[in-house]
């Protein structure tokens, strides 16, 4: 039987505001337990939430970047359930009236561009963390994360393959990071994804029974978990077994999904509008202001790079994968005027160095100005491309300018024709046998003479000049 896969993703992204969504506590990760917690975080009696306006603005940015419509009046609601990491006994979220709805994202997978719908984006507060003691029958509560702002991005069940799911996630992630509203760290949980997946025989209209997948903390794991789950569901259907609607956890080591204990599901959250907060009113002027402040988004930038700089789509993709990288590249281009050459150096050497050291482009010791200068020095023939490889390694290691390095090392290319002619003449004279063979038709020996010249000049000779002179002098 031929099956079609139906996937919908729910993404939670922590927003990079300095303070929490409903109090003034810091959102910084990694502080000692409960050091970023106040009476509001602790859900003490009589304390009240006050909305951080920055959270609304950040969430609006994401909503506009994903083509959503912003609701002029959206409402916070309480999601009620008991858990020790949830101090109030309810999470403040949005339910019937979310911040934004009806968005989409264009995603390319398996050579096909498809529109993936976004049902809604809403704001909510994060819960705290439980720390279990392995030596004692006790658990501890850390409320530093309580009240850290989140947005939940609920996708339509429009995704048709695990690859497409991973690609959709990468695009979402890229936008969040581009907007500088989320650090995108999946391991620390600032970007989390749950998936709903079902299969149906091709041509069938009704959806099959879906399962919900959790605990996938990388793009790769999302794809692996979905691939596993699709196979598992197909196997069940093909063997006449029933798919149970349940939540399943991805086990990375085992490479499989397993059902969550059913006790942990089946909540009735009893949502109702939070009477402690007033509806968030978003007028057109506010939307316009946020829209005007949006940076160029990755997809648009990619298209512009291809058109404006005439670089291949692949290069544009790499160079725009991160906002700071794209900005670095554009700065280099602006200063040297050589987009394709700049792309090669940035994608080749610069990224290679950074990847080796696991550094980000923001930490790159090579200033855009220096890289542009180096490209200029190659163009004007001061150094050869080969010498540049050595220069750029030094620039990366020391942060020095290319001119400084060239002077320090005496790397300036020999472009003096007279001087080079003397060296060539001496080499020809010292190798009469090879000269005779070359003239006798062994043209391969040309390379031998080039090598000798380079050796004699310690590689500083301008290669083009060497070629021209050698050809002339060997023929004489």
């Amino acid at each position, binding site marked *: 039987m031929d099956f079609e896969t139906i996937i919908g993703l729910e993404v939670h992204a922590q927003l990079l505001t300095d303070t929490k969504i409903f109090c003034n506590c810091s959102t910084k990760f990694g502080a000692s337990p409960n050091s970023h917690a106040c009476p509001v975080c602790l859900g003490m009696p009589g*304390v*009240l939430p006050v909305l951080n306006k920055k959270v609304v603005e950040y969430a609006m940015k994401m909503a506009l970047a994903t083509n959503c419509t912003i609701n002029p009046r959206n409402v916070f609601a309480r999601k009620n359930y008991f858990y020790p990491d949830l101090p*109030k006994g309810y999470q403040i979220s949005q339910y019937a009236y979310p911040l934004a709805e009806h968005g989409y994202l264009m995603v390319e997978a398996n050579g096909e561009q498809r529109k993936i719908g976004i049902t809604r984006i809403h704001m909510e507060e994060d819960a705290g963390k439980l720390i279990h003691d392995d030596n004692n029958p006790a658990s501890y509560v850390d409320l530093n994360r309580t009240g850290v702002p989140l947005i939940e991005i609920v996708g339509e069940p429009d995704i048709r393959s695990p690859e497409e799911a991973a690609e959709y996630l990468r695009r979402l992630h890229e936008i969040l990071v581009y907007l500088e509203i989320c650090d995108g760290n999946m391991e620390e949980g600032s970007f989390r994804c749950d998936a709903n997946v079902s299969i149906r025989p091709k041509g069938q209209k009704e959806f099959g029974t879906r399962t919900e997948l959790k605990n996938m903390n990388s793009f790769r794991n999302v794809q692996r978990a979905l691939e596993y789950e699709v196979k598992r569901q197909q196997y069940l259907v093909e063997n006449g077994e029933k798919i149970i609607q349940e939540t399943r956890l991805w086990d990375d080591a085992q490479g499989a999904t397993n059902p969550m204990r059913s006790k942990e599901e089946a909540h009735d959250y*009893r949502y109702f509008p939070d009477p402690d907060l007033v509806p968030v009113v978003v007028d057109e002027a506010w939307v316009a202001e946020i829209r005007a402040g949006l940076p160029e988004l990755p997809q648009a930038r990619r298209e512009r790079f291809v058109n404006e700089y005439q670089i291949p789509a692949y290069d544009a993709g790499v160079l725009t994968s991160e906002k700071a990288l794209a900005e670095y590249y554009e700065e280099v281009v602006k200063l040297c005027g050589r987009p394709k050459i700049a792309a090669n150096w940035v994608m080749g050497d610069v990224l290679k160095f950074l990847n080796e050291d696991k550094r980000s482009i923001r930490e790159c010791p090579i200033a855009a100005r220096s890289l542009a200068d180096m490209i200029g020095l190659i163009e004007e023939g001061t150094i050869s491309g080969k010498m540049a490889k050595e220069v750029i390694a030094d620039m990366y290691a020391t942060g020095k300018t290319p001119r400084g390095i060239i002077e320090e090392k005496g790397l300036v290319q020999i472009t003096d024709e007279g001087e080079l002619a003397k060296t060539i003449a001496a080499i020809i004279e010292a190798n009469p046998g090879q000269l005779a063979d070359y003239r006798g038709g062994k043209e391969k020996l040309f390379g031998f003479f080039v090598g000798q010249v380079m050796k004699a000049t310690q590689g500083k000779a301008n290669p083009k000049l060497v070629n021209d002179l050698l050809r002339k002098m060997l023929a004489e």
Partner: protein
Amino acid sequence: MELHQLTIHELQEKIRGGGASALQIAESVFSRIDAVEDRVHSYIRLMKKEAMAAAVRADEQIKKGDIQPLTGIPVALKDIVCTQGIPTTCGSHILHQFVPPYNATVVEKLAAAGAVFVGKANMDEFAMGSSTETSSFGPTRNPWDLERIPGGSSGGSAAAVAAGECIASIGSDTGGSIRQPAALCGVVGMKPTYGRVSRFGLIAFASSLDQIGPFTRDVEDCAIMMNVLAGYDPKESTSVRAEVPDYRRFIGRDIQGWRIGIPGEYFIEGIDPEVSAAVRKAIETVRQCGASIVEISLPHTRYCVAVYYIIAPAEASSNLARYDGVRYGLRTADARDLAEMYEKTRMQGFGAEVKRRIMIGTYALSAGYYDAYYGKASQVRALIRRDFDEAFTKCDAILTPTSPTPAFRLGEKTDDPLQMYLSDIFTISANLAGIPGISVPCGFSASGLPIGVQFLTGHFEEGRLLQVASAYEKSAAVEKRRPSL
């Protein structure tokens, strides 16, 4: 007259004129407390040490000529407002050892205005009740008849003012919890407009209905208290940025030409005849003040109690979820796992009425019932609010009884929650609509129990509310009696 029997404005005059010191006033109040508190039980906790120190500080301020609106005035706080460093129980065993690390905004404001805090007044557990009988600390008794209840939930605050155990007090009103005990104890009690007084630090019962307000001995004192309490608070999102006038300016103004609305729906069968007679007399008094009496209709009145007993418990079921034994308050000693810790802590910590309302509220919000209960109640609430909007196009203020009966006997309604709920039948609508209301004494029953009349005005019209209440008070000149304790 002894100092503890005077009003705020009378004491202010004495303080200014050198006729009394803050310390003398505090001593007078505490000696009265020594004499009557074991019979009335207005307080969960007295703050004598803190009060005496505050009175000494107040006298220093007075000496310097720095006299604030409440300098040296002994004020009681309902034990629902958080006091930094001082246990705040909300009348519940589950919070019997809870010490807040913060002050409610009203506590900050009262302290800044020079008030001397006498103690934390008794109340129905989590403000759920109309008699102060659900308190985990035992009931408060009505100073006019110790066999009767003082009303509730702010029964302790009302009784303390009536019994001379403080000069003024703070209560909270979710469905009548200030106005009903004010009526039953023969004092003035006001519920301001929702959003007028900050709820920060007020332990929540039903967040969309709760409002803090004062108990005083006369309407002028009420205006003095409102001047201190009212105002926007950045710590509360539902607090409103509306201008706060000097409420004292409205005292003594006449109501010549005002239209006073009498809603037919509030003069129903089942009202105690003595209450009915006293309120009819109040209507006559208002007419004699130069106001015209207009009949109005609030057609959705009969749904008020039903709507209230869905919305208030629904919000309460969520607001009270935080009392789980994890971070503060009671935690059961014998739990084997998390679920048992939750169950036993809440089973042992909450009283029967609180549990009843948590269950009602949880049910009303449950999947499959939400639309029929909470959803429908919210819609009807909007209609009730519209009733008032329309009524106030035809009149300037509304006059009703505050409570259908004078104070009832202890235990009389504890086994019949529905009868108890009907004690708030005339006060609930103001909370649902968010409008201000005040109860003013309007006479006594034959057996000497106080009766109150309620005035209501539109949103943020506390000034006009005080104006009509003070004009009535002056003209009615209800006999000044004191409970014989």
